[in-house]
């Protein structure tokens, strides 16, 4: 099953972006509009297994990860997956490919739910041929490796919901899922809320556990059956491996999340909260989601104050949870936290102890190929972006110079909220954020309603209703092109667009599996 690189033929999608017809040997469908593509067929499924082939006492432990991989029948060219709940404190992905290297395996595809700078050692495995390429978020050293055209296959960037969709639709077949588990029992039940590497939810690994051919749980905190809650069910698990350490707790969750002191971010956060209040979105029983970045976290704090003043309570808040959201829950400002990932210690404790702090999976919150998803119920979501264009299209995956910066995360999936706000600076030092055309299209302007900057708020002309709602409320509503002009004037004129090569190095997927845009090899 050796992988070969075929010459890339490009085609133009519904938004005029050039995308490859084939990616890593698979035929692609170009983006056809936000809701333009309907796929037919049945979901993928793992092989049927029999209990007779598993230990009757339920003890699935093997001594080492290498042993487990061999027992799973690892072969060259297979796809191996991991989750990113440990963020920059993950030790298991590196452990996994070290083991594969020692076993002499080659041309593997790594399919993480996200990668972090701590995964830089994978570069050596790519250079050595152990890993062929990565489909998953690429940033830091891995992002540079890909942007510089050094990776053999194409990078494929998917949202959290898109990753679930790709697995369930059979676009990506996971041969072996390796699930780092902060707490597990010998049967393979596992959760993220107990143990030294506690990270909160484990649900980024849920699809892997359901659809992979083989599933290995790796833990440093084995408990006697039953490990509850079972975020991962042992009935889906083949082997359990105990190791000394699966993660660096200090890098998995922070002790506490601190609000930013940056005056400009605070200003943008303040305007965003006022917008949400003054547009009438902040009302009894509403819901919101905000990222854990500096600006979006500050927004949640400002909004919380306004909710208290107005005597308004939320029905639910979607996390990324932090101590600030937990405080809202504890003070009764929201009935529920529906939490995709946990950013600090208070979040972990709250998820463990408060039944109203509910762990959610990409299936419930984000999967477009399902019978609905929570992301569409959220009244307002506040997100960041590296660039926004005058048609409200946005980029989150590359820098303005075209280099890979970070993954999509849940960002694309969140765009389906009833009101989508991007809270961004008008410029970053000398880099204007509002541009004519985004470097990499990650989110279509059809789903992006409001851009809040420190120099004014732009409302998508599609949303006359929002414009009407905030009329006369004293908010600095401006045309997006006005803000663009002002920033460009300060920065010293129009920025030159990145010189890009004609070589595609990565593809950006839409939530339905179609191709939204390409990332190009950087010209040095």
């Amino acid at each position, binding site marked *: 099953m050796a992988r070969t690189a075929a010459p890339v033929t490009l085609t133009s999608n519904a938004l005029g972006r050039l995308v490859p017809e084939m990616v890593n040997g698979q035929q692609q469908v170009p983006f056809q509009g936000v809701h333009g593509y309907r796929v037919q067929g049945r979901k993928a499924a793992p092989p049927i297994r029999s209990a007779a082939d598993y230990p009757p006492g339920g003890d699935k432990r093997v001594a080492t990860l290498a042993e487990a991989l061999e027992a799973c029948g690892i072969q060259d060219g297979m796809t191996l997956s991991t989750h990113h709940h440990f963020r920059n404190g993950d030790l298991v992905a590196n452990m996994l490919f070290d083991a594969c290297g020692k076993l002499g395996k080659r041309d593997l595809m790594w399919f993480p739910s996200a990668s972090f700078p701590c995964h830089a050692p994978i570069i050596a495995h790519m250079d050595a041929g152990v890993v062929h390429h990565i489909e998953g978020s690429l940033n830091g050293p891995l992002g540079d490796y890909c942007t510089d055209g050094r990776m053999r296959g194409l990078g494929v960037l998917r949202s959290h919901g898109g990753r679930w969709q790709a697995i369930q639709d059979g676009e990506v077949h996971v041969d072996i899922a390796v699930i780092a588990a902060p707490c597990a029992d010998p049967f393979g039940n596992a959760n993220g809320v107990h143990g030294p590497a506690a990270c909160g939810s484990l649900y980024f690994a849920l699809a892997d556990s359901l659809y992979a051919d083989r599933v290995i749980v790796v833990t440093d905190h084995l408990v006697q059956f039953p490990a509850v809650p079972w975020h991962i069910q042992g009935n889906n698990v083949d082997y359990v491996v105990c190791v000394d350490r699966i993660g660096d707790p200090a890098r998995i969750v922070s002790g506490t999340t601190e609000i930013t*002191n940056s*005056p*400009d971010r*605070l*200003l943008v956060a303040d305007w965003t909260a006022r917008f949400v209040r003054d547009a009438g979105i902040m009302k009894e029983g509403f819901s919101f989601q905000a990222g854990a970045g500096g600006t979006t976290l500050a927004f949640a704090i400002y909004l919380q104050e306004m909710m208290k003043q107005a005597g308004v309570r939320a029905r639910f808040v979607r996390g990324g949870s932090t101590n600030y959201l937990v405080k809202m829950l504890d003070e009764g400002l929201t009935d529920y936290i529906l939490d995709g990932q946990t950013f600090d210690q208070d979040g972990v404790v709250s998820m463990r102890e408060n039944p109203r702090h509910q762990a959610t999976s990409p299936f419930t919150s984000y999967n477009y190929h399902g019978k609905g998803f929570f992301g569409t119920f959220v009244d307002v979501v506040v997100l960041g972006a590296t660039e926004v264009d005058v048609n409200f299209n946005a980029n989150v995956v590359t820098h*303005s*110079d*075209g280099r890979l910066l970070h993954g999509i995360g849940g960002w694309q999936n969140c765009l389906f909220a009833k009101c989508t706000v991007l809270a961004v600076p008008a410029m*970053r*030092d*000398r*880099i204007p954020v509002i541009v004519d055309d985004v470097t990499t299209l990650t989110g279509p302007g059809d789903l992006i309603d409001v851009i809040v900057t*420190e*120099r004014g708020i732009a409302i998508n002309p599609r949303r006359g209703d929002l414009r009407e709602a905030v009329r006369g409320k004293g908010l600095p509503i401006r045309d997006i092109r006005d803000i663009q002009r002002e920033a460009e*004037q*300060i*920065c*010293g*004129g129009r*920025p*030159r667009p*990145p*010189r890009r090569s004609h070589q595609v190095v990565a593809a950006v997927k839409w939530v339905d599996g179609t191709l939204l845009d390409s990332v190009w090899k950087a010209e040095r």
Partner: protein
Amino acid sequence: MAQPRARELGRGRAAGAMTRIGQAGHRGERSDCWVRVEARDEGGVILCVKSKVEVMYGHAVRSTCLTVLDAMGVRNAALTVEDQGALDFVLAARLEAAVKRAGMGAGATFLPPPGGGFDGQTARERFRRSRLYLPGDQPKHFLNAHLHHPDAIILDLEDAVAPAEKDAARLLVRNALRVVDFGSCERMVRINQGQLGLEDVDTVVPQNVHVILIPKAESAEQVMAVDARANAARLDAGLTAPCLLMPIIESALGCFHALAIASASPNVVALTIGLEDYTADLGVERTAEGRESLWARQVVVNAARAAGVAPSDSVFSDVSDLEGLRAAVLEAEALGFEGKGCIHPKQVPVVNAGFAPTPEEIAKAQRIVLAFEDATQRGVGVVALGSKMVDAPVVKRALRTLRMAEALAMVPQDWRRRAGGTLADGDDVRKEPLAEDGSW
């Protein structure tokens, strides 16, 4: 490699060993750059630019480098730039500083073309509730400071700038005053003490500085020296509006000369106090409670009032304690201060709100002013509101409250006409209800 060679060249040229290498700016500091200029005898200009914004603005960075070197008369030099997204005016200031530090460009300057807001004027009577200090050597804070709506921004050349960076900061502040749009903020500069401060005046006053803050003011002569120098600089530059002054009392001696200082020039508009230096001068700790500085603050208020200028309070130094700041503003207002310094933008709304009139104060002031104007119109000598007499000073204070309320758009400009409608209907303002205890 380069440095020994430069020393060699220096020795070979003349006695007195001319400096041949100049550096300026800050490495790795965002919105800033670091530059190194090495004078050469031949070979033209060699540019080595590493820019974070290479793709988007690398061409502009190079072109600015060449323009500035040309204006400075530098024909042969090796120039290294490490750029973290510095705007042109920052890059130009850094280059000019480095060229001068390399012993070149004597007498030459490079003034970037003026940007928006350069021509804005101020007025003596302006409200100066909040004035936001910006370290004069850190360009990253300049651009967005006005978005937080302080009444004034202060580009600080004194305490916020290290002694070795005074020359570079002066050029950076000069360029910022030309180029950055500070919106509707009053443009202030805190100069250095002594001779250095007078040189600061020469450089910054032609760039339309509205108010100069004079640190460590201890005598009227000191203020007069700055005033004379500022006048000369502004006349040279063809500016018509006077440059206003705000001396800072920061010592026991300053307290004793406060009235003379506040009266030293008609250009003095406000008197303020620096409590860090003052408490150091007394040899006491600066406490949150501030008992050690109460006398000094009252002296400043009284001297300012005696001289007919506005008293303004010191800064509140705990940025994270907004509740403490709120209390400090109320206390300052109660002592008679009209404004306060801010060291972080998040202090600005608290200070602005604290010194702004409350809706109750505005309503009371409106009743007083209407009663006064009504009485004047009817030729009645005595103004009364309900059962209470209204004295002239009370009217004066009410007018001031309303001026501020109007300036802050807290009342419409035509509130008299709106209120006048009810008057014409025979609704005598003197029948306006008073508080139960008969007070306002």
